């Protein structure tokens, strides 16, 4: 199998970018990734985006973004897998490069949320089964609340058992220059947090925000003799789907697609999940992070919340979606860019010592789509 390497990464800060459009956010991440790769330009651009056609009234992003970013004429189109769109775009870039179809491909995740001042929740609910979930007034946050309520009931844990996840995310984001909330949380703030969708509180749900992140892939033999950055190898890339609707799953508390996606990506890489030095888990909500940790095998079902006491692999090393901010369809590529930063040893105060092997996992909906990547330096 041809070795696929990440030659460059680029990110914009995550936040409410009132002054930046979808296309400009995209261009900033693209140009920054090209520069990081020593001027390497892609022959194909795969764009992960969920909301553009609804929030910005803009489809056909391939033509728009390539033309605006100085890449006019190359192969480019949108990949949509709800919140996992960006990670799914990386999978496409991986296929294009590993097959030999192109020498260099870029995956871009871009999301512009703040062009609408209200009504975004209804648009995000298009990632659910519209006829049978969205129609009933259910939103992504409500789905997470339904799962958390059941988890608390079935396993007899209290809501406080989830608090270590937002605490960890906010502690790490303090040192991430691209993070939206660079402020640590006090544990007592979590105890009095206002409920949003019972039992989810304000700190259980990642804040939606604008952002763009890009990754350039090429084959190892094509890198210059002295690459600008330490190349990071992409050893595994897996996209797995589950039933879209929660009610259609035999056991909604088992993230089956997340489990199978970890298994497949690890098999490709020839590793076990326990071998990784860090895991960028999807913390769109704290219950999803717990269920994903269980699915990946870091805890038995019902025991995921106990990982804070038992000790665990480094997680959410740059603040996760909770504190870095959640640029919806771009969040999967932020995870990958952050893992690359760790593996290159460029994470500064957030550096995981000796990090050589990383896993990232992005979920579309409650793991209706799960995308897992394995990276190694």
């Amino acid at each position, binding site marked *: 199998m041809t070795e696929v390497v990440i030659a460059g990464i680029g990110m914009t800060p995550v936040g409410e970018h009132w002054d930046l459009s979808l296309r400009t956010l995209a261009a900033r991440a693209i140009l920054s990734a090209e520069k990081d790769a020593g001027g390497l330009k892609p022959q194909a651009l795969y764009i992960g985006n969920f909301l553009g056609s609804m929030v910005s009234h803009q489809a056909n992003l391939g033509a728009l973004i390539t033309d605006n970013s100085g890449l006019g004429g190359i192969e480019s189109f949108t990949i949509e897998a709800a919140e996992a769109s960006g990670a799914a775009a990386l999978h496409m870039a991986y296929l294009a490069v590993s097959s030999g179809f192109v020498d260099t491909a870029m995956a871009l995740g871009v999301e512009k949320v703040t062009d609408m001042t*209200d*009504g975004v*929740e*209804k648009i995000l*609910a298009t990632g659910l089964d519209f*006829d*049978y*979930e969205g*129609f*009933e*007034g*259910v*939103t992504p946050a*409500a789905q997470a*609340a*339904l*799962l958390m*309520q*059941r988890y608390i*009931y079935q396993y007899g844990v209290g809501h406080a058992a989830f608090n270590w996840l937002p605490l960890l995310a906010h502690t790490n984001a303090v040192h991430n220059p691209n993070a939206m909330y660079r402020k640590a949380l006090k544990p007592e703030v979590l105890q009095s947090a206002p*409920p*949003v*969708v*019972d*039992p*989810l509180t304000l700190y259980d749900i990642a804040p939606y925000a604008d952002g763009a992140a890009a990754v350039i892939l090429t084959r190892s033999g094509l890198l210059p003799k002295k690459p600008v950055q330490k190349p990071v190898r992409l050893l595994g890339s897996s996209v797995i789907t589950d*039933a879209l*609707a*929660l*009610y*259609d799953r035999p056991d*909604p508390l088992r993230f089956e697609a997340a489990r199978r996606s970890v298994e497949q990506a690890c098999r490709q890489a020839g590793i076990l999940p326990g071998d990784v030095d860090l895991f960028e888990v999807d913390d769109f909500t704290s219950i999803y992070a717990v269920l994903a940790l269980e699915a990946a095998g870091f805890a038995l079902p019902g025991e995921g919340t106990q990982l804070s006491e038992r000790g665990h692999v480094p997680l959410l090393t740059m603040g996760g979606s909770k504190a870095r901010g959640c640029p919806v369809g771009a969040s999967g590529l932020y995870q990958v860019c952050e893992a690359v930063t760790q593996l290159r040893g460029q994470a500064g105060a957030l550096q995981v010592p000796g990090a050589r092997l990383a896993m990232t996992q992005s979920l579309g909906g409650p793991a209706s789509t799960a995308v897992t990547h394995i990276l190694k330096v």
Partner: protein
Amino acid sequence: MEIPRHWRLKKQRYALVGEVCPHCEAKIFPPRDVCPHCSGEAKTPYQFSGQGEVYSYTVMNDAPAGFEENTPYTVAVVKLAEGPMVTAQLTDLGAEPVKIGMPVEMVTRRIRSDGNDRGMIVYGYKFRPVMQ
């Protein structure tokens, strides 16, 4: 307005009509094209009893666009007596607190209006506590 869409779904929405798989006899709701259990083609209509119990629930205080007039409302995943689960709002709750495992039954209720105040009123299933 999305009249064809609501019209197309009226049997399942008004009367909880699903399917029974002609190959493996699994009860299926909502209707599908392929049986999730045996992968055979699913097409035989089946009338569900409307009896079930609450698998999980939450209360929506901050409703998405189109549901503001119902706020606050309770949504639940209900496990039907015949096996499948369904997502629906709970209604007629009175003072009784919702509990996981609580027996509920299906009723047909107004879900929302499609579009503005001149839009079509869309009806569908909700579930209420079983009268003791």
